[in-house]
């Protein structure tokens, strides 16, 4: 019996998902989530699937399934949740948030999960790149001489980007340590 289970562990089922065994689960994970701002209502989920049915990302990519992400988090499949690309695929459209009959506030829950993932050192590279831009320009896009000449040509006021205030906040919040997962 034990041997069989050993064999089963890690074996791919239906070519996609791995069998989950108890030793992979962290029963404390759900409490970690409800402590994170945005995750407060997470335990209310009754798995009705309204979120998934409302999700415009799911309409295109059937693998993206927010109800399943919530279930995985509820049973404590922490590593799979935090490592997965799926939490970064939420387009934050708030359709599920509006329609959830249990007011789980799923979009906010996704933000909470991403914040937790970052603490453990999992961050999507595109988001990391945005931080560099914020530090440099105080914005996600640079307004260089070229843009300003264009703006002036069309009667728009020149923009002097001033990243100093943004930089000070990033420094005070130790954002570099945060994204290294050292917080």
């Amino acid at each position: 019996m034990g041997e069989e289970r050993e064999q089963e562990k890690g074996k791919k089922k239906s070519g996609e998902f791995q069998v989950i065994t108890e030793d992979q689960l962290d029963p404390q994970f759900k409490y970690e989530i409800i402590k994170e701002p945005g995750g407060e209502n997470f335990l209310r989920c009754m798995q009705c699937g309204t979120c998934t049915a409302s999700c415009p990302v799911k309409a295109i990519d059937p693998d993206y399934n927010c109800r399943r992400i919530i279930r995985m988090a509820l049973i404590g499949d922490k590593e799979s949740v935090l490592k997965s690309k799926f939490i970064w695929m939420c387009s934050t459209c708030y359709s599920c948030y509006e329609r959830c009959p249990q007011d789980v506030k799923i979009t906010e829950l996704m933000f909470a999960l991403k914040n937790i993932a970052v603490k453990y050192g999992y961050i999507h590279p595109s988001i990391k790149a945005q931080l560099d831009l914020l530090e440099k320009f105080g914005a996600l896009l640079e307004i260089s001489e070229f843009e300003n000449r264009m703006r002036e040509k069309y009667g728009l006021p020149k923009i002097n980007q001033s990243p100093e205030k943004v930089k000070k906040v990033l420094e005070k919040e130790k954002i570099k340590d945060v994204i290294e997962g050292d917080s």
Partner: protein
Amino acid sequence: MDYALFLGCTVPARSLGYDISVRKVAKDLDINLIDVEGFSCCGFPTASIHRETSLALAAINLCLAEERNLNIITLCNSCTAYLTKVNMILKNNKETFEKVNEVLKANDLEFKGTIDVKHISRLLYEDIGTVKIEKTVKRSLDGIKVAPIYGCHYLKPSSIYNKFDDPEMPKSLDSIISATGATSLDFPEKILCCGGAILAIDENASMGMTHIVLDSVKSLEADAMATICPFCHLMYDEYQATIGNKYGKDYNIPSLFFSQLLGLAFGHEAKELGLKFNAVRTKNLVKKIMGGEQ
């Protein structure tokens, strides 16, 4: 009335047509938009990484507007939701208020909670009113079919917006479009997400989302789409041809910022409204609108 104009990151760099036309239209409606030195990112991009940082980044902008005693007018849906939300949190949650003000000390700023934030479309709908818009129209858009594109964060989460519109069946943008004489098309996809937010995460999913809306608009034989967010514009205008190629469709639907359409209705010429910055050509649409004038 005076307002602080919050452009955000994308508009001043990539959506000049929005920047130009909003200022034109605001002037026509006696709205005085003031550029505030020092506005930076709204904070939303860092909400996924570190909530506390994002709250402080949003608060920088709120404080700068407070110092000038000006309410903020936004153009981008994401900036709108984030600044509105953080403003609400800081006004109502003492613990967060104190934490954020502690961080802001490094910048000699202090959040007080004295101003409000509104999207330009909401301002037109709620404060200016469609009657005034109707009165300002010099060139009716009668006979033009327009697909209103609401995007997400303009309406949702509805809990931060004091129910100014219905997130499932909105009408604010429709009524602004109707005030120009144009026909505002009713279709369920008008509230769908453009996919722009995950373009850098998953291009396939992102463009797939855009194509669903474009398909619907195409089937309605719309003359134009009207957007109120630079990300929607990016997807429906700049990426329209790319998405068309990917899905084997020839969309060719002019996608205008709603302020560009208003500008045309208010009697401005295409070149005064930055239409040359639109990727999908608007020449035929403008011709149809000008009708007898040309």
